[in-house]
């Protein structure tokens, strides 16, 4: 039995943690729903809630009224933000698919098979994530200039793959090797060929880990700022994070920034919602 005092302490702690995480988001929502004119005085709940900040990101002309009845002003950077969201989505999806296609077999081989030089291979892969990514920016930049792919989606995809694949191979290989050895053996005596044992049994059992890694790969691309800032501004391949940054520096109203930032949170929240139950299965040291 827990004493009431203890329960109270635990709940208070949880409440504090939740507040810590959610207050900034709450403030973002609050701002994004307020009129530009209201931003100077802080209200905990907008006096005149409005969706105009969101509308203006997608359309300069859709009829939307400010508090004084005049048309709601257009956002200077709306096109870039819109394009950035689309580019980010395209890049993140493609990188995630390519990452998983390469990493799952690689992680399986490293995690479950024995072969010469396996340890060194894994070390090399992990080492490639050990330096700050900015260190490889210069060589990439000059290479991309030669190849004429700076400022293209292709260029970003290539560079993002160098971030995601090592990370995912590393996590997944540990995950594969933690699964019981007898799993494939069971599959074999059940009548699976070695290949069937991999895709009919092992990958299915590893699904929570595979899913978690796909989400990690997606978010790595979605949130990536440094490379995107250096390689894409001003081009049609600019992703969302640099577009948002440009908005900060160019536009005076924080309400619009808040609305744009929240739009970027939507895919993240959808992912979290869709995969929460699968990823929760990740505490799967003993899968039974």
């Amino acid at each position, binding site marked *: 039995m827990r004493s009431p005092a203890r329960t109270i302490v635990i709940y208070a702690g949880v409440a504090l943690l939740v507040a810590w995480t959610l207050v900034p988001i709450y403030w973002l929502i609050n701002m994004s729903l307020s009129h530009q004119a209201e931003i100077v005085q802080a209200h905990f709940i907008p006096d005149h809630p409005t969706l105009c900040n969101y509308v203006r990101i997608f359309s300069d002309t859709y009829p939307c009224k400010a508090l004084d009845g005049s048309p709601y002003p257009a956002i200077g950077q709306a096109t870039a933000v819109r394009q950035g969201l689309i580019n980010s989505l395209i890049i993140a999806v493609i990188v995630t698919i390519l990452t998983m296609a390469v990493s799952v077999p690689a992680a399986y081989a490293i995690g479950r098979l024995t072969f010469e030089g396996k340890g060194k291979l894994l070390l090399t892969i992990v080492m490639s994530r050990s330096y700050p990514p900015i260190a490889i920016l210069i060589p990439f930049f000059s290479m991309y200039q030669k190849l004429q792919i700076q400022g293209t989606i292709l260029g970003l995809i290539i560079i993002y793959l160098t971030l995601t694949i090592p990370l995912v191979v590393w996590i997944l290989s540990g995950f594969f090797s933690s699964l*019981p*050895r*007898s*799993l494939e*053996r*069971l599959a*074999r*005596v*059940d*009548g*699976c*060929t070695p290949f*069937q044992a991999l895709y*009919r*049994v092992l990958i*299915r*059992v590893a*699904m929570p880990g595979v899913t978690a890694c796909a989400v990690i790969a997606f978010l790595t691309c979605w949130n990536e700022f440094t490379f995107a800032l250096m390689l894409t501004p001003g081009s049609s391949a600019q992703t969302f994070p640099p577009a948002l940054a440009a908005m900060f520096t160019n536009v005076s109203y924080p309400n619009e920034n808040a609305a744009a930032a929240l739009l970027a949170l939507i895919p993240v929240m959808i992912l979290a919602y869709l995969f929460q139950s699968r990823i929760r299965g990740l505490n*799967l040291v003993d*899968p*039974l």
Partner: protein
Amino acid sequence: MSAAMTNRDQLATHNQNIRLVDAQKRFGNHLAVKNLNLEIIDRELLVVLGPSGCGKSTTLNLLAGLERPTNGQIYFGNEDVTKVPAEERNVSVVFQSITLYPHKNVQENILFALKLAKVPRDVQEQRLRETARLLGIDRYLSRRIHQLSGGERQRVAIAKALVKRPRLFILDEPFSSLDAELRRELRGEIVRIHRELQTTMLFVTHDQEEALSIADRIALMKQGELVQLGPALDIYEKPATSWVASFVGPHRINLLDVELGVDGDQPYVQTPAGRLLIERPIFNRVQQAASSQRVMLGLRPEFSGLSASATPGHSLPVEVYTRQHLGNEVLYHVKTDNITLRAVVPATQHFQFGDLVNFEISWNQALWFDSTSGQLLHAPSLRDGAGEQQPKAAAGIV
């Protein structure tokens, strides 16, 4: 090695038997299985018994096709299956650790092999019903694996193994993680299932009590080698070596280095704790078999006794050292200046620590071993009518 030859000669007549012929498995420098010759008779329940690390799991992996032998052959009947992969051997295994797919429910687990083999749906369903009834798991069929208790999981694992009607059904220490009560219950189930289904079964365990309680025959392994093969009781009564005697039995056997001698007309055995007189017939048998006067005497605690009064020449003076209650019996450790002995006595007899008592020997149950090789020299017959046999032939030593 002549025993192995006769083994091989018999094979032609029993062509449904499963055989390992000179099977060897090497991992790097380590020989996990050394030239193993073992025949599993069609439809028997053979228990492979041996201490941890002796190569039991490796042997079953060879039989299931999960490992290739580095040398030797494996036959299923007359067919050489040495190079046949696991998925084509029709062997079922209940493994030592995980035995089910965590991502499938009970029914999907059980039917996975049949689905892979494209068995018609109605046959699948019928087999599922039969097997579930046999194991008493009808109620759990739609549960997820993590919603089952350890015992229920093992039942499902057994059902899963049986549903495909295997040519050979292997269980690798299936109950080692379960509590004693459940273990006893499931052992009973295994014997019952074996009787009902008449499948060839190989049950692997390191628990000699478990082995004795279910086996038709026991194959005893040590360090990758077959030490003894035979009916369960034979292994207890006529252990091929002193190692077997100390491994198999409810209590660890007392092993004493002794010397045979004759004083006038009276044969005796000189133990480290004193001199014991012995009858002529037993003495003669042992002496005939022995290569020297020094032999090893094996006294099972369950056939030894303690008494307050001394019978000179037939008991050893000892001091009570520790005591362990076993229900209606008590296991005593007693000691002299240089040896410790064990004896099991009825709980009605009561001794205190430090009591000076007499360790009583029952010569009719004593085992005799060569003091250097440890090979059995003489074992009395414990069963009526069995007669005294040459121990080596009876035990089928390889």
